[in-house]
């Protein structure tokens, strides 16, 4: 798209673009190309010689049982977060969309967790579910449930899912609410006159009409679960116990920084780039109105 009337300077637009382009090239294209370059190289243990190894890093990574394990963790984790977040956010949004007293107050009270850093959410939940001193963790143990997320992998994963979801619900709630409020009241009223109410109104009218929002949120939540939850995992479990909360993102960090395996970390970065590209592509496809009923 382009405006009809524009200014005719030849040099000025390049100067206006310059700051953004410099930052984009230096901190985006350069590193991204470095990642691709590194991913086909192998360094000897002393860092003296690098050799071109074609796709060996990729095949090493993809046949590594630890990597496969973290793929599984990531899939379980991100699907759990997405389902958990979207179900609750939609429920709250449908409720807050009703014309009830205090609707605006509820909205404010349900919005603020968006402002929290994922790592801060992790600290808050650790304090509650700490097996020895946490209000709930202690209660669970007193009830004989053997709660200790530092030892039990399934419990660790559950806690990471809960802390991440808790922070993300506010975001989804806002988008669902905006989606619901953009539905023309005439449509809803017509359905109600025809006798649709409650569940039927939700299934037959509201859910289809907000489906663009729903599809959009699926990709946003997957991206959130893949990347933004690094802070939650780093603060809460450090990927453990064992590797039960090591997601792909956490593994890139571990291999690249802690274990300094550059070639394989770069190969993992490239794989992540591909995954994000697919997600972003999906997002644009759906936002462009391919899923529309109005």
């Amino acid at each position, binding site marked *: 798209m382009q405006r009809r009337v524009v200014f005719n300077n030849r040099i000025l637009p390049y100067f206006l673009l310059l700051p953004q382009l410099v930052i984009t090239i230096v901190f985006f294209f350069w590193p991204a190309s470095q990642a691709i370059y590194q991913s086909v190289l192998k360094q000897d243990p002393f860092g003296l010689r690098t050799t071109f190894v074609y796709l060996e890093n990729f095949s090493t990574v993809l046949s590594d049982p630890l990597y496969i394990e973290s793929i599984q963790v990531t899939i379980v984790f991100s699907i759990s977060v997405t389902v958990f977040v979207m179900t609750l956010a939609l429920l709250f949004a449908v409720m807050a969309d009703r014309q009830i007293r205090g609707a605006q107050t509820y909205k404010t009270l349900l919005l603020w967790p968006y402002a929290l850093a994922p790592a801060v959410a992790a600290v808050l939940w650790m304090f509650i579910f700490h097996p020895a001193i946490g209000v709930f963790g202690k209660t669970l143990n007193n009830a004989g449930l053997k709660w200790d997320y530092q030892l039990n992998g399934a419990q660790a994963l559950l806690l990471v899912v809960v802390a991440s979801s808790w922070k993300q619900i506010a975001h989804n709630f806002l988008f669902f609410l905006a989606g619901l409020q953009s539905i023309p009241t005439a449509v809803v009223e017509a359905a109600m006159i025809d006798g649709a109410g409650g569940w039927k109104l939700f299934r037959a009218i509201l859910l289809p009409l907000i489906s663009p929002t729903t599809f959009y949120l699926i990709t946003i939540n997957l991206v959130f679960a893949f990347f933004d939850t690094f802070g939650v995992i780093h603060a809460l479990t450090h990927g453990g116990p064992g590797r039960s909360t090591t997601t792909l993102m956490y593994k890139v960090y571990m291999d690249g920084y802690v274990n300094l395996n*550059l070639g394989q970390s770069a190969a993992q970065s490239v794989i992540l780039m591909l995954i994000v590209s697919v997600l972003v592509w999906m997002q644009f496809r759906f936002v462009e109105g391919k899923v529309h009923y109005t």
Partner: protein
Amino acid sequence: MIPKRLRNFPIHLTLVVAVIVFVFPVYFAFIGSTWDASLIGRGQMPLTPGPDLIANYTNALTSAQGGRIIGNPVQALLWNSLQMAVAIAVGKIIISILSAYAVAFFRFPLRMFFFAMIFLTLMLPIEVRIAPTYKVMSDLGLINTFAGLTIPLMASATGTLLFRQFFLTIPDEYVEAAKIDGAGPMRFFWSIVLPLSRTNIAALFVILFIYGWNQYLWPLLITTSRDMETIVIGIVKMMGTGEAQTDWNLIMASTVLALLPPVLVVVLMQQWFVRGLVQTEK
């Protein structure tokens, strides 16, 4: 027919439960910040506020030294986070409004190529390219510098897309009128475009401030010196592996202090926040 008040009861109940679920982790953090460490360490923290509120917050703000923790004073950490968040927000707004202005109000060779270049940054969050970006930063000598901490986070397409979208709605007649009156493009930018963009700038600022304040992975890698530590990193470092016998009262006081600024921004500037969130993402 059932009276409206009764009919709405399940709705209110659901929403009140939701609000409570959202609030209670912060409530317990607050309670934790009002008792002494040994009581919490024994697992005997009551469910109501205790007597040490002022002592704990004063300690956290000015020294953050406890029986087990040697932290950074939280006031220094808050100051670091504030500087980082404001720098990222302001920097991103400036570079993206300028580039959007170029793309929307001029026609020049390679225009769409540059736009596509900026657009592509959407594809890769900084987390994906951390290792190579870190390498670039150390080559440029930007590790442990404020520039290294903030500038890479300014490279993003969202601001440019938002402003470009808005600029396309500015009527052509404005540009024509400006040209007839002899205003050049920069005069037009200062006198017309910038004032018209006020609400968009405010909305974007709120979103970016929170984005900047909550950064975790990037500061973790780039800042190794203690005096550059941000509040979010500082708290996680204080907490360590989360042993029972640590200064939980200090950690919780710091946590409450860390979450207050962004939460206040969201609550007090709610209109702009909602607008910014919906616009930058859609």
